[in-house]
């Protein structure tokens, strides 16, 4: 039996100086890897056990330093970022670059092996100029964030000793995550078109993951990706069957243009699906309120109940803001999905119009595929199923 050898690679930028400095003064020592630099951002954690290439390229992580609770990271390396699918969408990544500001892990796998890998995690971070730190008690860190809530932090990776006091000063004056405007950096500047089907769906890009595009393509529609502030006229000029407002980073209130567009989409009864940030935007457009969660929901194991049939689904999530459940009763929406653990709002349906939204990620990547049916729901809203039957 002769076999193809599995690709194996070794890290070359690991074991540098690394420190994690919190705005409450806590300093954690670790080993730096990836790119030597200092970054500031909101530090959050994700409990998913696989999927770091997808997670790190998710635009929703813009402005954040990400801690992975699974202690061994980098085991299977990173695939080739240049590989695209037949529509020209990146095959293995959720956007064209690493979106997190920095990465915190317990142990970096300095050697990686997998048939589909092109480089190590360390190498990838280095190439994209992102710092990473290993050797951190990530469980302790997670407990800290769970107890005190997410906070601003600095991640420093350096080839030389780190001046903590200096970094602390810089951290104090760094822009706060809550007030950062991300749309200019995560949203597309002009329209992008994927596929050539006759019927189309517009995706309003507030930081859209590629998996959303892939899923719509799979439904059989051309995808037109438009900037976050595209006007309703612009959107309707494509004569789309439906609209998706995507996931993305930050406070939904920082996307007033999109909220405005969403209002008009509802008004005109254009079939619309909101995902994650998109759900919050739709919520705000229909009179709900949003709030910031203490430490967010980030992971791949979150149970959500579909109130239509009481089925429970395991979902992939990544959000720091949510729709205030109390604000629902005076809004235009009914509750659709509820988090089975903390009862937070995970999905809403418009009382009269063709508009639905989910707080979790039906497109997966990373995470379970159990909620792909949400895209089928959109298809249903677009009247396509009925049409097909007739």
């Amino acid at each position, binding site marked *: *039996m002769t*076999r*193809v*050898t*599995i690709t*194996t690679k070794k890290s070359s930028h690991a074991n540098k100086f690394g420190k994690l400095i919190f705005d409450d003064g806590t300093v954690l020592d670790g080993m730096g890897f990836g790119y030597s630099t200092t970054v500031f951002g909101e530090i959050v*954690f994700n*409990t*998913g*056990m*696989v*999927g770091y*290439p*997808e997670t790190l390229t998710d635009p929703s992580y813009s402005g954040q330093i990400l801690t992975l*609770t*699974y*202690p*061994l990271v980098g*085991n*299977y390396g990173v*695939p080739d970022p240049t590989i695209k699918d037949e529509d020209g969408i990146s095959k*293995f990544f959720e956007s064209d670059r690493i979106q997190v500001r920095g990465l915190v892990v*317990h*142990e970096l*796998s300095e*050697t*990686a*092996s*997998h*048939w*589909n890998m092109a480089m190590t995690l360390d190498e990838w971070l280095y190439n994209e100029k992102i710092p990473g730190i290993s050797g951190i*008690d*990530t*469980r*302790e860190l*997670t*407990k800290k964030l*769970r107890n005190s809530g997410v906070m601003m932090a600095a991640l420093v990776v350096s080839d030389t000793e780190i001046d903590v006091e200096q970094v602390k000063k810089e951290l104090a004056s760094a822009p706060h995550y809550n007030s950062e405007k991300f749309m200019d950096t995560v949203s597309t500047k002009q329209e992008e078109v994927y596929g050539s089907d006759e019927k189309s769906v517009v995706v309003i890009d507030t930081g859209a993951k590629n998996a959303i595009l892939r899923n719509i393509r799979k439904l059989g529609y051309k995808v037109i990706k438009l900037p976050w502030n595209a006007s309703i006229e612009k959107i309707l000029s494509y004569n789309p069957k439906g609209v998706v407002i995507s996931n993305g980073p930050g406070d939904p209130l920082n996307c007033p243009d999109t909220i405005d567009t969403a209002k008009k989409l509802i008004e005109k009864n254009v079939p619309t699906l909101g995902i994650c940030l998109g759900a919050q935007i739709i919520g705000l457009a229909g009179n709900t309120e949003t709030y910031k969660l203490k430490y967010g929901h980030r*992971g*791949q*194991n*979150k*149970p959500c*109940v579909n109130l239509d049939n*009481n*089925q*429970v689904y*395991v979902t992939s999530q990544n959000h720091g803001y949510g729709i205030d459940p109390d604000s629902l009763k005076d809004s235009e929406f009914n509750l659709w999905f509820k988090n*089975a*653990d*903390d009862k937070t709002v995970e999905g809403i349906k418009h009382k009269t119009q063709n508009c639905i939204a989910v707080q979790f990620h039906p497109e*997966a*990547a*990373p*995470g*379970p*595929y*159990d909620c792909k049916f949400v895209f089928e729901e959109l298809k249903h809203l677009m009247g396509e199923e009925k049409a097909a039957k007739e």
Partner: protein
Amino acid sequence: MYLLPVNPQYVESVVEKERPDGIMLAYGGQTALNCGVKLEELGILQKYGIKVLGTQIPGIQRTEDRQLFKDSMGQCGVPVLKSKTVKNFDDAKKIAEELGYPVIIRVAYTLGGRGGGVAYNEIELHEIVERGLKASLVGQVLIEEYIGHWKQIEYEVMQDYDGNNVIVCNMENVLAMKVHTGDNIVVAPSQTIDNHEYHMLRSAALRATKHVGIVGECNIQYALEPNSDRYVAIEINPRLSRSSALASKATGYPLAYMSAKIGLGYNLSELVNRITKSTTACFEPSLDYIVCKHPRWDFSKFELVNRKLGPTMKSVGEVMGIGRNFEESFQKAIRMLDIGNDGLVLNRTNGGNLNEEQLEEKLSHPDDQILYNVARAIKAGFSVERINNLSAIDPWFIEKIKNIVKIEHKLSNEELGKPLLWEAKKHGFSDKQIARAKDKTPDEVRKIRKDFGIVPAVKQIDTLAAEWPAVTNYLYLTYGGTSHDVKIDPGEKGILVLGAGPYRIGSSVEFDWGTVNMVWGLQENGEKNVSVVNCNPETVSTDYDICTRLYFEELTQERILDITEFENPKGVITCVGGQTANNLTPGLAKHNINILGTSAIDVDRAEDRSKFSAELDKLHIQQPRWQAFSNLNEAKNFAQEVEFPVIVRPSYVLSGAAMKVVWSQEELKTYVKEATDVSPDHPVVISKFMLNSLEVDVDGVSNGKEVIIGAIVEHIDSAGVHSGDAMMCIPPWRLNNKTIETITEYTTKIATTFNVKGPFNLQFLVHDNHVYVIELNIRASRSMPFVSKLVKTNLIALAAKAILDKPLPDIPKNKWQKIHNYGIKVPQFSFMQLEGADIALGVEMQSTGEAACFGNSFYDALSKGLTSVGYNLPETGAALVTVGGAQNKEKLLQSIALLKNLGFKIFATEHTAEFFEEKIGEIEVVHKISEPERKPNIADLLYERKINFIINIPSTSTLEKYVGMLEDEYQIRRKSLELGVPVLTTIELADSFVKTLEWLKNNKTTIEPIEPYDPF
């Protein structure tokens, strides 16, 4: 609760009596599942209107029947391997040629992959297919493409009646598909597959289990090609399995408990996560650690056994190491095995060197040393790529082993500074390993380490990676962390109970029963804070809801000291965890840990043969002649003087390890050396082995003043068969009253002399009505649950009182004699899985489990016991008798005559036939397997199923197998075993077996529930 064989006849009789509404089939392993399917096929479930709770019978059949399984997977879009089910060799050959060799043969409806194998050519195919067809309950085997180098990934699925389903855990097998998952080194979660592969397999698992209709828990096993994302589903186990037990302990998600609730009709989202007590059970645990399951094989207890690992499971137990990286959990797991190794490297012996060719061979055909051989190969300069190519082990795991080897090298060559020490500890090196590299004592390393402030952190297993606050008491220790998850109130002084570690030959669930009952006993006596240390995922003692805090940890001195430093308990209990825990007593005592129960000094007086013997002399109690030696010549002289046979053993070791009956000078030389290896600090003891004597066990409890005898237990086999392998009976049926009185008196004297505080076990030899003491074990014994349940006195609950210095209740001295029931304990052997192992019994224990049955007569109990461990008790048929030695033949005469009277046809080999024919008339002569041309031949009769059982008594004594293997007898035993024909290898067993058959002609076995313990 009934102690009865799990087969359709007995289950029906219970059903008839109890008239239950429902039956659960998923909790008693393959035995219960098969029985359930049979009950359905026989119409018994329908007859009594019993509902199956959980996965329904058609669902079970869709997973168990190979063809149905394949069809179902096809229907739900889950790929399977190209394969075909066949019912005869000719078809098998055709398929194998189509698929191309090698092919794997799998057997439908068996336990632990029994009877399957890989065939590289037609000859092997023939052998495996013939064996498999006979082992299969439905006479089917499956021939399929061999994919040994593919990754082996498993998912544990929970699903309710409404179709809600979740994956509780996934696992990856380090030794790929090559090795049965039961024998594989397994990590959870998977380490080498990416998001796409993880979720592709996850979705397929949910799809497949929904399609076949699983309700409750199941395990699905995949093979995943290492060079692509091509995968196939191998099998679904529609029941709780070893893997589910492992998954439960790996995640903290109690699969069996949840599955039972689901069986009753609860919906997953209605159930609460038992760890957080606030979140739902309908979720998927997120781990922030890695567990490593390592099997324990115990091949060394069997001669001639083939140590190669493959599709047939051979291990007898397992452990689970928990850590924050692979190196740590893996090296922890090695120590947990309690096989004398302190980790992967830097062990007491390095096991010898192998040349390049040998290494290649060992890497391609893994045995129980496989990862040690990977380490050797790395040291010999093999590249990761080459090792991967030979072994199919993923490069990621090989790299981790390489890390361990690198650190070993550093430890041996660099100064032991703080960074190096931290690095070593983080990668799972024990103080002992480090001490060995640095030529220091483990205590010195411990001191250096603590001076540097390098101590392990106590972390929780909380099912959700710290995302929610969890009140869980399920803990492990790791050097991959800087702070503890839990705090111990300094005023809170608890008790630490040490468990028994992995199941092994000689120590199985009995000691876990002891551990759990000790915890309960302490709690009942007002101890609020009782914690447990154990590392065996198959046990109840590692259920986190049993005790105050569960440390899923190593039972090593280093780790127990770490835990006692953290817990600061008022004492540690080492007397219920069998050999592993008991052996820690002296070391812990030396470190000023308070041992609760019998003092370490008294334990030492009992374990040290010389001291023990001196005490007995003072009490005027006899022992077989013995002497301690550290020099071979003296030993030889002694043996000559008392005459062979003699028993040789280390003076300080439990459970008969390295205990041998020796018949010649030559053997003596070999075994003195072997015994010295096992216990180098203690000299060897040689004692006279008395042939033709009875062995008796006494289980009891004492508080140093009062002594309560649980029961006197008589071995049915004559002395020399290890007490763990022997059939045992309460009450004794061949001892006279005077002997019983003597034993009672000796027991009381000995227990008080040794200030026993807690459980103890005494072994006696009765020879010509003289009572000799063999040994005193100051700890819970293997037979204690059996005794406790029959006599309705929970000995461990009593022991808890004794340990806490509470007065013992007033239990009449002869309570056990007033029990009207008979209880018989029968050992369960697993020789079938151990290719090449011989089934003739000897002084070193070989059984892997046991069954105990009660009845109102000796034969009532015995027939149930024999049925339980798999003996078929035929009403008519034929027996093959081959007996070595005139004395044995004489002894068996009555039984053979009785057998003939019962209408059984008797086959016998020439000499045996000659002897019996003369005395009892017609016997049919058959010829030896080694003379295949002479007909009728034993081999043919066996294959044609013309023999119902075999009485095969080896010449002069079972013990002579150590003198030289009697090839033909071995062949008979081996062949019959492979074909599932019972073989009786001792005269006592043969006699009882035949008398049981006689009894069954005129009697029916009783069906009575066991009674609860008497309160005291």
